[in-house]
């Protein structure tokens, strides 16, 4: 798929979307993602149920994630190939931001 198109369409990700995508490197259901993100960020980021549902529905519609199973009326999701590409692009973007930030701040010292 065209890299530039994906960049224009999805980047930058919101903080919630970013954490949802990285959590789905393993199959998880919505509430599982919420717990995982809270744990990962030591409680700094809590994703509300509405925000989580909105992100999951949109990402599934856009094909960034796939619903791989259903357990007790809960859908289990996982990153799709497209989602992996978008996440890789976002990581590259963030790396560049960090690199520029660091070098600029060091130069000004």
């Amino acid at each position: 798929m065209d890299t530039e198109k994906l960049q224009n369409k999805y980047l930058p990700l919101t903080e919630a979307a970013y954490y949802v995508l990285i959590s789905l490197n393993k199959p998880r259901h919505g509430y599982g993602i919420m717990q995982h993100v809270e744990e990962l960020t030591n409680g700094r980021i809590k994703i509300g149920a509405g925000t989580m549902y909105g992100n999951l529905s949109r990402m599934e519609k856009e094909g960034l994630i796939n619903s791989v199973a259903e357990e007790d009326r809960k859908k289990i999701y996982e990153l799709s190939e497209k989602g992996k590409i978008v996440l890789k692009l976002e990581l590259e973007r963030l790396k560049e931001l960090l690199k520029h930030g660091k070098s600029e701040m060091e130069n000004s010292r």
Partner: protein
Amino acid sequence: MKEVKTVWYKWTGWNLEKSENWLEEMEQKGWNLVKVDYAFRFKFEKGESRKIRYSSDYQINAKNDYFELFKEDGWELVDFQNDPWFIWRKSYQDERPSVYTDTKSLIERNNRQIRSIIIMMSVTTIFFVVIGYFFKAELISALIIVSLVFYGYLISQLYQHNKKLSKPLLNVSISPFK
């Protein structure tokens, strides 16, 4: 017998915070919400003072996984019977919980409303145009104008709310079509 109170309360889709805070204050005063009839009639029962967060949602085609996710996160569905509107509540101690934790989701909730209103507006207009063939044309045009003004008002309020929400951000699309 428990003391009961019925209040007709006008809430709007672009100022849900106000009605949510009102319900929270009622609970603090010991008026526990029992149910809501006819979208605007709120029934309370006198009981204990409770600390409860109310959150409203507009969700078309909500399926099992929607309800399951909210319930797992500790939210209880209020007896409202006004699909696609839902009122959720959750008791809390220190940190006040929210169903929506970022601005983008709030803008999207407004956008879902805007899309529904545009559909209703089109259906109403087509309906009036069709019956316009059989009835007095002046009356029908007046009805079309009234309905367009009404729907237009709703859309502009929601759009303005979106603009207010997106102000501190530089990069959030407020278009209902994106």
